């Protein structure tokens, strides 16, 4: 056990631990709520987590580079509204073009954040705090006090997120969830296997060392914000498709939920470590608790935020304590090895 514990990477351990928590939560609620553990639970969670998972992936990228994007909810709201009015004015528009428009719009917002953070060198928390308000005011101005209703949208868009691609008995694999999983997998593979994407980790672990190693730190941070913006744009499109009715408050609160999902998923808030797979599992956990506590008779449905807050605190505490212990174990082991190597003739007392 100890060997396994020290051989796995901390990140893998983290995701494994989270999966354990996830199954414990499911098991617990299956004893509490009748007809809980079935295909419908999977269908429900998978279709509601899709949006948050995409946003959390972008957020995780930004956090990896030692930054934070608080404007992401406003970007989701704006792109949802803008793509909605675009498609209702041009109902014949090709779906791919619409998605592309949403992502380009989001990327443009991300670029504004990125320029201010990477090149003007204003701390990300200040920039995105300001653009959180600013982008929302763009939306208010743009919407002109109107809202989008699902009756204005073409049929393909409204049915898209719930289209069943594959079916195993009760389990349905819906298009919205598949899109989210594909995004997460692409970003994950890029981050673990591709050289340009490894730069995010390098910049986050030590910007100074990354710069000396020849990495363009500014461009990397800028890219993280642009990608996060583009993903928020995609999420805006998904939001439009899923809810249909868009007002000026669309996407409010996603910034904190996405940070919560990333942090739960083991992305270090100080940058440099974490995985988007973790962020996905974090998003699932956030959503699972949200959905399950509503159905639990024993506590009022209003307790779900309180439980979620406690869970985040618990998880980061456990993380900090376990990491410290893990580091100590490894340091002790390395020290012992070094000692063994240097004193091969005499036995140690």
């Amino acid at each position, binding site marked *: 056990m100890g060997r396994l514990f020290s051989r796995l990477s901390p990140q893998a351990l983290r995701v494994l631990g989270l999966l354990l928590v996830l199954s414990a939560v499911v098991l617990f609620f299956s004893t509490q709520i009748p007809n809980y553990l079935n295909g419908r639970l999977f269908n429900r969670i998978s279709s509601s987590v899709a949006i948050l998972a995409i946003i959390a992936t972008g957020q995780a990228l930004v956090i990896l580079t030692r930054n*934070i994007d*608080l404007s992401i909810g406003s970007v989701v709201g704006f792109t949802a509204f803008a793509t909605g009015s675009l498609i209702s004015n041009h109902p014949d528009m090709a779906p791919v073009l619409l998605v592309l428009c949403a992502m380009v719009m989001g990327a443009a917002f991300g670029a504004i954040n990125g320029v*201010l953070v990477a090149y*003007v*060198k*204003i*701390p990300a*928390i*200040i*920039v995105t*705090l*300001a*653009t*959180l*308000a*600013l982008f*929302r*005011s*763009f*939306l*208010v*101005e743009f919407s002109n006090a109107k809202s989008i209703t699902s009756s204005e949208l073409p049929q393909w868009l409204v049915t898209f997120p719930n289209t069943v691609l594959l079916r195993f008995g009760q389990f349905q694999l819906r298009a919205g969830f598949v899109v989210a999983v594909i995004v997460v997998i692409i970003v994950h593979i890029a981050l673990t296997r591709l050289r340009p994407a490894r730069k995010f980790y390098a910049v986050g672990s030590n910007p100074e060392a990354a710069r000396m190693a020849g990495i363009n730190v500014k461009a990397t941070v800028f890219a993280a914000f642009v990608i996060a913006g583009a993903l928020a744009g995609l999420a805006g499109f998904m939001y439009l498709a899923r809810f249909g009715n868009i007002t*000026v408050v669309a996407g409010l609160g996603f910034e*904190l939920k996405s*940070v*919560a999902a990333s*942090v739960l998923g083991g992305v270090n*808030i*100080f940058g440099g470590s974490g995985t988007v797979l973790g962020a996905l599992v974090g998003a699932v956990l956030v959503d699972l608790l949200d959905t399950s506590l509503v159905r639990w008779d024993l506590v*009022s449905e*209003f*307790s*779900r*935020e*309180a*439980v*979620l*807050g*406690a869970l*985040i*605190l618990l998880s*980061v*505490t456990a993380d*900090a*304590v376990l990491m410290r212990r893990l580091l100590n174990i490894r340091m002790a082991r390395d020290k012992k090895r070094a000692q063994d190597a240097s004193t091969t003739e005499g036995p140690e007392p």
Partner: protein
Amino acid sequence: MMQKLRSWEGLLAFALLLIILYNTAFVPQYFTVSNQINLFHLSIEKIIVALVMTFIIINAAIDLSVGSIMGLAACAFGFLFQSGMPAGLAIPIVMVIGGLAGALNGYFIAHVGLPSLVVTLATLIGYRGLARVLVEDRSITDFPDWFDALGQLGLIGPIPFAFFAFIFLFLVLFVVLHKSAFGRKTYAIGINHDVAHFAGIDTAAHTMKLFVASGLVAAFAGLLYAARVGAVRGDVALGFELDIITLVLLGGVSIFGGSGTLVGTLMAVLIVLNLRNGMALMNITGHIQTGVIGVLLIGSVVVARLRLPAFLAPKAIQGRTQ
């Protein structure tokens, strides 16, 4: 003197003067006593919390949970009052709840060693959840007359109680931050936590005190909100934390800690209030107003860079400028 005028606070004062002059000249009904009081009254809870937030950010930490503590305090008050407790007894209990909420933040930050951003993000969600558990989706009203009057009527002439509370708190905190050892420790920890620790400052205890103070003041502000509005719901003060932090940062407090002044925060408060008030009187909606404040926030950092290259200098130098 010249040095003072060229400081960040001097620049803010100049901007404030411009806004006031503009409003007086072009906005009807701006320069009236009732509007001037109204201007403070509508945001009094936020600007009270901003004073303690100045300490927290100078200490190189952040408290995102203040809006939720305000909500929790208001809801706890409504809950206790509705279950038959006299308001006079409920108020101290609510203050204790606020202090405990702050102490919980402080414990995880100072003693477990977690980043304040993460801890207070979790409690931002958690305390809001507790508030919602207490009042669910009801709205609690019918508080005693004296309680409502305290929030809504003038205490001396047309000036309400909350305004005096703000002035009093400002004066006390000004002395604490700029004239006491406690204030110097706050700067020292903000400039370099480890050095402050090795210099013999009990950094954990200090951070703990600041977060308890933040919780107490947020609870007080939550009560003021309940009194002013005369009703309590689960979403009291939702999202206030971002407005409050914006006020402090606009006032020239560095997000990295170690520099900034309470006068700067006061200036930023006056600027934001006058700007919002002028825009509101010109029928500009709240979301657009917030957007303008956002531009101002970014602009303030950019201008600081352009004007004073010394702002980029090591933080130790910034810390000494007061």
